């Protein structure tokens, strides 16, 4: 390394230090970003770009060939629109549940309680489990002869074939993803709560504020920046839901739990004919959604910063 430094001079050694990271970035992230457009604009089932004929916006046109966007059956790529509608429902319900349960848990953990670090670990533990393990744990609980059905029967109900029913399957995909990830968001919200100065609460209680007033005029406004970060992170993750679903329902029953990333995966890697162009076009559309969410996040964080400054 010393001869290299003699050659470049000490300040230019910086280039040597950033190079390995930059090469991996360039080859596996930046280059693919551009190649993605090339795939989206070319056709055929060939993988190598040189073998792929240019088709313009045909792949996008195929996705948008639809007489009624609210009814996937009228679309040529009906599975895509089912995936979009499944993902939309998933994102709305999952994020709402995730943020509210995480907030409730963070508020509970922020109180003066015994065994606080134990409870914090309990809620966090599932975050570490792999998506495949999470899926199998719950698939086992939700079996026809599983524990959940046993509890239902013992309280007088009848067995439910949870993962064979579209609505139940959708609900359980949401519930297990909240179960698996809420600890992460709880932890971030808890850190936000703990950064609120205790003097504010003391002052409020001296002024005779009740608990509801304190929550509304101190906790909530001061927690808002953290809430925004949590909300956007939860949204970005929810849009990309995939890992748990494959071992859990494999997109079924039918296409009831097929979401956007699974559509891309099936179209590009799992279906008989590998339609890379179509999959890339779907990726570009998903990237646009993620970009929009990120821009909103940046806007909001920036306005929060300027508010507090």
């Amino acid at each position, binding site marked *: *390394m010393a001869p290299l430094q003699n050659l470049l001079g*000490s300040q230019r*050694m910086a*280039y040597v*230090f950033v190079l*390995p*990271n*930059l090469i*991996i970035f360039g*080859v*596996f992230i930046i*280059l*693919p*970003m*551009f*190649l*993605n457009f090339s*795939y989206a604009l070319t056709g055929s089932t060939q993988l*190598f770009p040189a073998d792929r004929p240019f088709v313009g916006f045909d792949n996008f046109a195929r996705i948008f060939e639809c007489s009624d966007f609210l009814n996937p059956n009228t679309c040529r790529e009906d599975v895509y629109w089912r995936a979009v509608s499944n993902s939309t429902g998933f994102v709305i319900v999952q994020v709402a549940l995730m943020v509210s349960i995480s907030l409730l848990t963070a*508020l*509970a*953990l922020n109180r*003066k*309680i015994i065994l606080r670090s134990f*409870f*914090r670990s*309990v*809620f966090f533990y599932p975050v*570490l*489990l*792999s*998506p*495949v*393990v999470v899926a*199998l*744990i*719950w698939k*086992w609980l939700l079996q026809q002869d599983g524990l959940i*059905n*046993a509890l239902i029967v013992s309280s007088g109900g009848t067995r439910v074939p949870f993962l064979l029913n579209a609505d139940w399957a959708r609900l359980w995909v949401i519930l297990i993803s909240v*179960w698996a990830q809420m600890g992460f968001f709880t*932890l971030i919200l808890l*850190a936000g709560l703990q950064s609120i100065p205790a003097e504010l*609460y003391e002052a409020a209680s001296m002024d005779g504020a009740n608990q*509801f007033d304190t929550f509304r005029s101190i*906790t909530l406004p001061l927690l808002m920046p953290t809430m925004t970060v949590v909300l956007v*992170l939860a949204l*970005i993750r929810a849009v990309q839901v995939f*890992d748990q679903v*494959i*071992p859990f329902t494999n997109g079924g029953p039918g296409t009831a739990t097929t979401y956007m*990333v699974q559509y*891309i*995966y099936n179209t590009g*890697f799992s279906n008989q004919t590998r339609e890379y162009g179509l*999959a*890339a076009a779907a990726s570009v559309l998903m990237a646009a959604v*993620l*970009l929009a969410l*990120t821009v909103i996040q940046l806007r909001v964080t920036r306005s929060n910063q300027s508010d507090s400054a």
Partner: protein
Amino acid sequence: MSTILSFLTRTQGRSRLTFTDLLTYLYLTIGTVVMFGPVLWLVLSSFKTPQALVQFPPTILPYRQETAVVDGYDEPLPLFNVTLEDGTVRQLAQARRIGIEAQMIDPANPDDIIRVNIEDRTPVEQVVFSLDNYAEGVNRFPFWRYLWNSVIVTALATALTLVVNSMAAFALSKYQFRGRNAIFLLTISTLMVPLSVILIPVFLVITEVGWNNNLLGVIVPGAATPTGVFLLRQYMLTIPDELLDSARIDGASEWRIYLQIILPLARPALAVLAIFSIMWRWNDFLWPLIVLSRNELFTLQVGLNSFQGELQTQWNLILAMTVLTLLPITAVFAFLQKYITTGIATTGMK
């Protein structure tokens, strides 16, 4: 209503246990059951026999029916407590069952067949934490092979991430050079480009490099994490420049400054990144699923997924293998949970 409101409200220094506190403990207790219960149920179930697993309603502990070897029968026969017509209870082995009638025999006197209604007999059971499922699972499922692949991927990827990220973070925090801000912005902006958006082109690059069906194809693409660069850079900014300058005056090369000053001082941040990288890589699923299609290269997650697809009905083996897969990460959590939770709370990443 007021209790809900007060529950939502933070309290400071309370001497008496209030209703709100009770509600909090109730919530946390239910939460503990919901969060830990499923994992506990998985572990308990993994010790059950295939017969016990299909029993409905299921028992909590893994029971196993006792058997007896009886002369004239090849297989050991299951033992039952039988209530006879005269009200006495005897322990008998079941030779066969026809409809609602069971033919029972006394192991001590195998020639005498006693016919009873199946309602009049209850199995003789005891709690056994048997490792049979684990032993059979490890035989049927190349667990050690997959474990090895997962360990290789996790260890090499984490090492590579730490090296390239810390070098880049060093350059971006301690040097003034043309293009520095551009490189930093480029790095941060790739935070918005998750792998799921560029699956196909990355797969092409991997194929071109010849890493399709190669563990390197799983290891390298995700190694230059933007979160890692960002985390390490923020930490290295706090290392005083005077330290580096005085080392330079003493004749240390830039490389030596990186190795002997920067790396040791950045150890806390490196530890946080290492823990995250281990978690990411150990649990990674989508990308290995695409790169690896040859069975002997599967990581644990991909292997477990394909195993459960093939053996949908053999839950005893699936459960045992799932427990083995979650054990390592649980052990890591048990030892490092303080670092993990504070790391996430301070950096807001996973």
